[in-house]
């Protein structure tokens, strides 16, 4: 009994020291704090771009499927979806940072663009599934009242589609927030990178990584 108790005391004392070393000493928690801020910043703006792009692509794609026009735009959208969903996020991020926006020095901006474009592709397909889930009688009813295709889409189809895809959309955004952890690749100090820095200073991996998670 006593042995177990002293083992626990020992462990908790160790943990206390480790906690002190990893987070308190030299104000190391500031790394985590500023990393968290950057991660949230990237995620938030990427989500906005993702929704915007997603809506646009989804509407173009489903308009093409239903009406048959917009062939050129639809082709572009299809390419976009295939390329973005078919290549790893890290590679996309590196390409955008080193090739496309190589003159841009604001890393957060680059990351927002990269994650936004990436997320847009997934959101587009989610929203398209929502649009397809709305009964086609709704479109007919809107059109028969003299509303244009776009008006029917905006006032009748999209609100219903949006409601249907909210759970899937929530999923996508959780994934997006976690995915921002690869932004360390362009030397951006997000939450994961902050954990790395602490680990490199204290040679302790467990606590910083748990805190990051």
């Amino acid at each position, binding site marked *: 009994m006593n042995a177990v108790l002293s083992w626990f005391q020992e462990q908790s004392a160790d943990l206390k020291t480790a906690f002190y070393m990893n987070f308190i000493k030299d104000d190391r928690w500031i790394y985590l704090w500023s990393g968290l801020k950057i991660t949230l910043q990237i995620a938030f703006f990427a989500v906005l771009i993702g929704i915007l792009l997603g809506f646009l692509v989804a509407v173009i794609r489903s308009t093409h499927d239903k009406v048959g026009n917009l062939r050129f735009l639809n082709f572009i959208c299809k390419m976009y979806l295939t390329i973005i969903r078919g290549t790893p996020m890290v590679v996309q991020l590196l390409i955008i940072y080193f090739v496309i926006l190589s003159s841009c020095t604001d890393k957060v901006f680059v990351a927002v663009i990269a994650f936004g474009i990436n997320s847009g592709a997934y959101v587009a397909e989610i929203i398209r599934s929502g649009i397809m889930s709305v009964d086609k009688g709704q479109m007919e009813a809107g059109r*028969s*009242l*003299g509303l244009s295709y776009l008006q029917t889409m905006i006032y009748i189809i999209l609100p219903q589609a949006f409601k249907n895809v909210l759970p899937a959309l929530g999923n996508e955004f959780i994934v997006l927030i976690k995915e921002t952890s690869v932004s360390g690749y362009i030397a951006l100090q997000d939450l994961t990178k902050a954990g790395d820095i602490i680990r490199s200073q204290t040679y302790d991996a467990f606590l910083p990584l748990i805190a990051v998670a």
Partner: protein
Amino acid sequence: MNKHFSSASSPEENGGIIFKAEHIIKEFPNLRALDDVSTEIKRGEVVFIVGPSGSGKSTFLRCLNLLEKPTDGKIFFEGKQINCRGIKINAFRQKVGMVFQHFNLFPHLTILNNIILAPLKTHRMKRAEAVSKAEELLKRIGLYEKRNAYPQQLSGGQKQRIAIVRALLMNPDVILFDEPTSALDPEMVGEVLALMKELALGGMTMIVVTHEIGFAREVADRILFMDHGRIVEEGSPEDFFSHPKDPRLKDFLSKVI
């Protein structure tokens, strides 16, 4: 009769003919749904289209407001051809109401918003005007209390009457009914038919696809019988039921009456 319940009166041109269909052909893959259909609908006329399932009556109705595009043939609305390029299809459809078998109310909007959405977005009315007219119509059909309810809180008969009011508020020249009572429980059919009859008596131009043969007999000015994508016989209800000529119509009537 209330003024909203009658057709908008515009200068009578081309002999008061609202719709004219010339040799309409509609082909689906593996199916010729309409095979050379021609007819005219006059202003104020109440025309019923009956026939067995798959005879093309709904397809014909949907062709009239271009929900289906005819493969061949011409459709004229108030003297102008509508199934050609460069036509303002939305402006045309604002004058042609449509009531569907499955109501197709907008489930995310309240009853009042369902009704006033189209007049507002097409700039036919200001909000205050649309609301007051919608409320007036809702009072007439006894559903004023439901104005802030959502469609799923209503019975089938109530939904269909709202759908009719929604079409009416656009002040259309003609209303198309696509089997308006087929999806209703039997005890709800009566209230919808009563409203339709009221419209017919008020002088509204109506084209009705239905299986309610008795109702057609009572209300119709003219009945068209369709089979295999063609209009086989047409006439006044009296001729239609008392002296059917075509054997297919005789056969059909013997089954449904």
